C-alpha cells in the first residue's frame, strides 16, 4: 500500500518540553485522516514537521514515499492553525501570490481563485483587504490558499475552527468532494462529530504520543461490545457490583454502563430484571467523544511539568 506521508518515530523537544514523542503514523492515499488529541497534545508540532517548518530531533518524515524536501512540498496544500495571510493585501492578491509561489501561472491562479471565492460565497470580497474580513471568512480564504494549486495531499490544521455551522457544512462537502477526486486529506481537530462524518482513519495523540490509531470503524466496533444503555424504574444496586459493571455514567433518564471484562450482558439483564422494572436495555457503540475522553484519561502519564 502506498502512503502519502509516513512519520517514523518522530521526536521533537522544545527545551525540556517534549512536544512529540516517538510518533509514528502512515497516511494511506485517498483517505481522509483525522489527527485528534486534546489541546497541547502535539498535533500542531507534528504537522509543522510534516511540512518542513521544523525539523525533527530524531526520526524521519517521508512524503510521497521519499524523504521530505522542499520541492516535494509543491504537491502539498497547507492550512496553518492560525491565519497566515497578508492582512493589508487584497484577498485575490494574497491568493494569486501564494499560488504563484507554487508555480501556477498568474492568469490561471486568478481564474481559479475567483472560482473558489464564488463557490465559498466570498466572490464579493475578492478585492477587499484581508483585515476587513471576519475570522470565519479569513479561514475560508486560507482554505482556498491551501487548495488553489490543486495538490494531491492536503494538511489542514484545525480547518473548522471559527466556522459557523453553515460554513462548516460547506467545508465538509468540499472535503468529501476532494476525496472523491482521489485527493488525500489530513486534518487535525478536536471536534468529534466532524471526525465521525468525514474520517476513514484516525490517530489520537496525547502528550506527544500516539495512543490510538487505525480505521474509524474498527476502533468503534472494538469499543462497542461492552456498552449497555439501561432505562429503568427503582433502585439498581448491582451497578456497584464490580464483577458485572466496570463503571457507569448516570444521565438522569438512563444509565450507560461499561461491562466488566468477561461479564455476560445476558446475566446482567437477568439480574437487573429481578431488582427493577427495565424499560430499555440496549447494547451501544460508544461515541468517538467517549473513546476520546476515555483514552486520553487512561493514557495520562505523570504530568511532565511536575
Amino acid at each position, binding site marked *: 500500500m502506498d502512503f502519502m506521508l509516513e512519520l517514523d518515530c518522530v521526536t521533537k523537544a522544545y527545551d525540556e518540553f517534549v512536544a512529540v514523542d516517538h510518533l509514528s503514523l502512515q497516511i494511506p492515499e485517498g483517505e481522509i485522516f483525522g489527527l485528534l488529541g486534546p489541546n497541547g497534545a502535539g498535533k500542531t508540532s507534528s504537522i509543522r514537521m510534516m511540512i518542513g*517548518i521544523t525539523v525533527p530531533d530524531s526520526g524521519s518524515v517521508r512524503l510521497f514515499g521519499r524523504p521530505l524536501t522542499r520541492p516535494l512540498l509543491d504537491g502539498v496544500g497547507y492550512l496553518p492553525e492560525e491565519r497566515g495571510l497578508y492582512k493589508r493585501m487584497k484577498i485575490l492578491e494574497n491568493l494569486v501570490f*501564494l499560488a504563484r509561489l507554487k508555480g501556477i501561472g498568474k492568469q490561471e491562479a486568478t481564474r481559479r481563485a475567483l472560482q473558489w471565492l464564488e463557490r465559498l460565497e466570498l466572490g464579493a470580497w475578492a478585492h477587499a483587504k484581508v483585515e476587513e474580513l471576519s475570522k470565519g471568512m479569513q479561514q475560508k480564504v486560507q482554505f482556498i490558499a491551501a487548495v488553489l494549486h490543486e495538490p494531491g495531499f492536503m494538511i489542514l490544521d484545525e480547518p473548522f475552527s471559527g466556522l459557523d455551522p453553515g460554513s462548516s457544512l460547506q467545508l465538509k462537502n468540499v472535503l468529501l468532494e476532494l476525496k472523491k477526486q482521489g485527493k488525500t486529506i489530513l486534518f487535525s481537530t478536536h471536534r468529534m462529530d466532524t471526525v465521525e462524518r468525514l474520517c476513514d482513519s484516525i490517530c489520537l495523540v496525547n502528550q506527544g504520543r500516539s495512543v490510538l490509531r487505525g480505521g474509524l470503524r474498527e476502533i468503534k466496533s472494538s469499543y462497542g461490545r461492552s456498552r449497555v444503555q439501561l432505562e429503568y424504574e427503582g433502585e439498581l444496586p448491582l451497578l456497584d457490583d464490580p464483577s458485572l459493571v466496570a463503571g457507569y455514567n448516570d444521565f438522569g433518564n438512563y444509565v450507560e454502563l461499561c461491562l466488566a471484562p468477561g461479564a455476560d450482558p445476558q446475566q446482567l439483564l437477568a439480574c437487573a430484571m429481578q431488582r427493577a422494572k427495565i424499560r430499555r436495555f440496549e447494547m451501544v457503540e460508544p461515541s468517538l467523544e467517549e473513546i476520546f475522553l476515555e483514552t486520553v484519561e487512561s493514557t495520562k502519564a505523570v504530568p511532565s511539568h511536575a
Partner: protein
Amino acid sequence: MRNLLLIIAREYLVRVRTRAFLLFTILMPLFVGGEVVLPSKLMTRAPSERRVVVVAADPVLGNAVRAELTASHFSGEEIGAEPAESGNPPPPQFEVSLQGAPSEALRQQLTAALRQGSLDGVVWIDPNAVATRKVTYYSRSVSDFVATSLVSRALRMALGQRQLTEHGFSPDQVKTLFTPVSVDAVRVDKQGSSPSNGLGALLLPFVLLFAIYMTVLIYGIYVMRSVIEEKSSRVLEVLLGSVSPMQLMAGKIIGVGGVGLTQIVIWSASGALLGSGGYAMAHRLLGSTIQDAHIAPAVLILFPVFFVLGYATYATLYAAIGAMVNSDEEAAQFQFPVTLPLLFCMLLATSVIGDPNTPLAFWLSMFPLTSPIIMFVRVSVSMPPTWQIALSIAISVASLYGLVWISSRIYRVGILMYGKRPNLAEILKWLHYA
C-alpha cells in the same frame, strides 16, 4: 529563482503602492524645493534701499565711510566675484548723508527719525574711533545681517585707509593693499590634479553620506518590520512550504532596497530639476566656493558599490532582529546596538572628511560595520590608495557574506519562535541549528 523574484516583486509593489510612499516621495522634494527656491525667489525680489546717516566729527573719515558704503557693492570686492548670472539679490543700496559734530541732541534727533522710519540707520563714529576701533550702528532691526556686515566692512576699510594714510601711504597704495586675495584649492592625486574648492569638496560627501545613512536606517527598519509582520501574521508558515528562509530573507532585503533606490532616483531627478534654485541658494550661502565642486568619476562609480554594501549589511542585521522578536516594541531594544555603528559613522564622518588619512579613518574604513560608509567618505574627499579601497570592499563583501550566513540561521529558527524572547545563549545555540 522564480520564487525569489515573486517575493522581491511583492515586497516592492506592496510598499510603492501605499499612499504613504507616494506622499513621502513626492512631498519631500516639493518641501525641500520649496524651502530652497521660495526664499531665494523672495530675496531676489527685494532689492532694498537704506537711508543711512553717518555722524563723524572727522569729515575725512566720514567721507571715506560714505564712499565705501555707496561704492563697495558695485565693485563687489569681498563678497566674491558676484557674477551677474548667479541670481543673487543685489546688496542693499545705501543713500548716505553726512553729519558732523556729534552731540547728544543730534543723537536724539536721529534716533527719533529712525523710529519714525524716515531713516534706516545711523553710523555713529566717536572722535576716538580710530584708536578704539569701535563704532555704533543704530537701526530698527539688529538682525539685518547684510546691511550690518556691509556697514562693518565699510568702516573697517575706511578706518584702515585712514590709518595707513596717516602713516604716509598714497591712496593708490592703500587700494592695492586692500585688494582681496583669491585662493584656488587644487587637489592633487595619482591621476593628476583637479581644481576643487574646499567647501564644495566638503559638501558633497556630506550629502552622499546622508543619503546612505538615511536609506540604511529607514529601509533597514522596513526590512525588520516586514519580517515581524510576516511572523506575527503567520504568513511565514505558509510561505515556508514554497520558499526557503534564505530566499525569503534575500527577497525582502532586495525588494525593500529597491523601494529605497526608487525613492533616491526620484529625489535625485527632482533635485536636478530644482538644481538651479538650490544652486543659487548654496551659492549665496557659501559664495563662489561651491562653483566648481565637481564629482570625480571614481566617486560616481564607487557610490553605488558602497551604497549597496552598506544597505545590505545593515538590512541583514535588521532582518535578523526582526526574526528574533515578536513586536516592534521589543525590536527597539535590539535595534539600538545595530544602529550604534551607524551613528558612530555619522559622528566620526566630520573628522574623517577633515582628514581622511588618519589611522582612525583607515581602521574605520576597514572595520566591517563601518567600512562601506567611512571608505566612501574617504573616497569622496581624497582618493585613498587603490589597495585600500579594494581591501575595504573585500572586507565588506566577506563580512556581508558572514552576516547573511549568521542572520539566515537566526532567521531560520527565530521566525518560528513565538512568545519568549531569546537570550544571547539561545541565539548562539541557534547558530548551530538547522
